[in-house]
């Protein structure tokens, strides 16, 4: 359809690019999903083939659910991800509010210092972190992972949220002050609801790396009862024999919770943008 601002040519081209990108992005997920429903021979004979009556098998899922403490791993991953996200959002937003709202001495310096974490990967400090965790007795606890992930997520959260908080109307905050609201109430009741889209963005950015991380669980919490899902799935990958059915099934199931969390946050994202605030 041709309108003043759009011709069918550009529409088709735009969609072609987007569809191509979607296919590329989704292809690995698709391959994992179809192969998780096939028997072992079919995975190797025809990796890209869809499961049919002959090759269809749930053996991978059966192995995963029977062997290994899959639900425990699942629960561990969930606890670590949700608690870390909560702490990142809470402390990140508070720090961002302080940086954006109050002109204290060293404000800019503090902002830069906090932003430094975006540029320096936390894994550089792994050895030091491990030493700290050992001396505080936090090795093999979920707390260790939560602390590390919170530290890892804070710099970007503070950076993004403080930019957004600078955009919140000063008049609104001042109106709250004149009406006698405390700074905490101004933060929680007036400012936070207005930066909800930014909070959702930060949550989405942080959620997937935390959920997928293998490095820190492997180093800080390898014990059986605190294994995360990614680490737990490794039991099926052996040095000589790998149970591909089980690995693919475990990965397929691991996709679900992230997808659910993503849907929740992206809803917030859209709602935050469309709800009218000031003016």
């Amino acid at each position, binding site marked *: 359809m041709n309108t003043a601002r759009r011709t069918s040519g550009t529409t088709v081209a735009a969609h072609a690019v987007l569809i191509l990108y979607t296919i590329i992005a989704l292809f690995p997920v698709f391959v994992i999903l179809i192969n998780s429903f096939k028997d072992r021979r079919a995975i190797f004979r025809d990796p890209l083939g869809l499961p049919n009556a002959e090759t269809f098998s749930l053996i991978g899922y059966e192995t995963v659910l029977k062997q290994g403490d899959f639900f425990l791993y699942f629960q561990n991953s969930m606890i670590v991800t949700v608690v870390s996200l909560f702490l990142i959002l809470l402390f990140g937003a508070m720090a961002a509010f302080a940086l954006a709202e109050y002109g204290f001495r060293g404000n800019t310096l503090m902002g830069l210092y906090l932003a430094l974490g975006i540029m320096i990967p936390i894994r550089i400090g792994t050895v030091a972190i491990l030493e700290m965790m050992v001396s505080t007795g936090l090795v093999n606890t979920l707390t260790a992972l939560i602390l590390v992930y919170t530290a890892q997520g804070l710099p970007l959260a503070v950076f993004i949220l403080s930019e957004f908080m600078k955009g919140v*109307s000063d*008049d*609104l905050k*001042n*109106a*709250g*002050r*004149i*009406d*006698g*609201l405390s700074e905490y109430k101004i933060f929680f*009741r*007036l400012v936070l*609801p*207005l930066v909800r889209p930014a909070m959702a963005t930060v949550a989405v950015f942080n959620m997937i790396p935390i959920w997928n991380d293998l490095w820190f669980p492997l180093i800080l919490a390898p014990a059986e009862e605190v294994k995360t899902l990614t680490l737990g799935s490794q039991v099926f990958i052996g040095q000589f024999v790998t149970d591909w059915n089980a690995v693919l099934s475990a990965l397929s199931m691991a996709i679900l919770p992230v997808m659910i969390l993503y849907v929740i946050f992206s809803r917030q994202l859209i709602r935050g943008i469309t*709800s*009218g*605030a*000031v*003016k």
Partner: protein
Amino acid sequence: MTALKLTNVNKSFGPVHVLKDINLTVEEGEFVVFVGPSGCGKSTLLRVIAGLVDASSGTIEIGGDVVNTVPPAKRGIAMVFQSYALYPHLTVKDNMGLGLKQEGRAKSIVEDRVAKASKMLDLDRYLSRRPAELSGGQRQRVAIGRAIVRDPKLFLFDEPLSNLDAALRMNTRVEIAALHRTLSASMIYVTHDQIEAMTLADKIVVLRDGRIEQVGSPMELYNNPANRFVAGFLGSPSMNFLQSSVPGLAPGQTIGIRPEHLTLSEGGQINGKVTHVERLGGDTNLLVVTDADETLTVRLFGQDQTNVGAAIRLAFDPAHAFYFNDAEERVYQNAA
């Protein structure tokens, strides 16, 4: 009793000196308008009075008490903002009642005051709505209602009409004036619009670059401006300033004549050519370039038939002319 007294108030943001030695008294029940071009410090001054910004030096007294270290909520003030600044998650009723609720007043008192204010502002029908469901004018009335409910010693208005369209602005202006009569409360009103200043004020404070240029009633300032800035700022269209078109001026001296004090006359002293005509029905504005290449505006009452390009001669009454020296200060002299 004085509602507000400022003594030697200064404010600097780092190296920038925004308010310079402000001294001002607002009497009880007075409507005071701060007016000036943008960046002159009028909004900062209002925020200093409200306690949202701390003064660098000087004292602020509200109702006889020094309030320099008193938080905004306890200063007995209420403020209406340009952007309305309503709480988006609260209904109109809760928006208006929040201040009292925070003070810990009884529910019945809050209800009572909100009901009274909403009746005054004709907001009864909207009490259960949220700000997003109101029009701009309604939102501003809610913001004003929120101020009334607190029953403050001093009302502060920060350009409350700037976001409204022209017709609504006029109505709301009349409403604010009526409100001032009914409540007979002390009010401070910040605007850059000289029409709002002239129509609302008991007393106008003209600010420029963080300094008070002149304080007085609207007619005092109009008839007797202290300097060229005040003369040029008040009055619409603004005053004409001429240096070379009028004979008999000392070097460096400028004469100021308001557009309405110029008349078309065969024996006039100023020769010029009409470059543009604005016919408003009630008035006609002529834009004229004089022979000495200065532009001026002439405001003629009624519908004038002068056309673009016409050569005209203009006369003025020396009694209505103002003289300024090259430092832009007013010079008093008998008719030249």
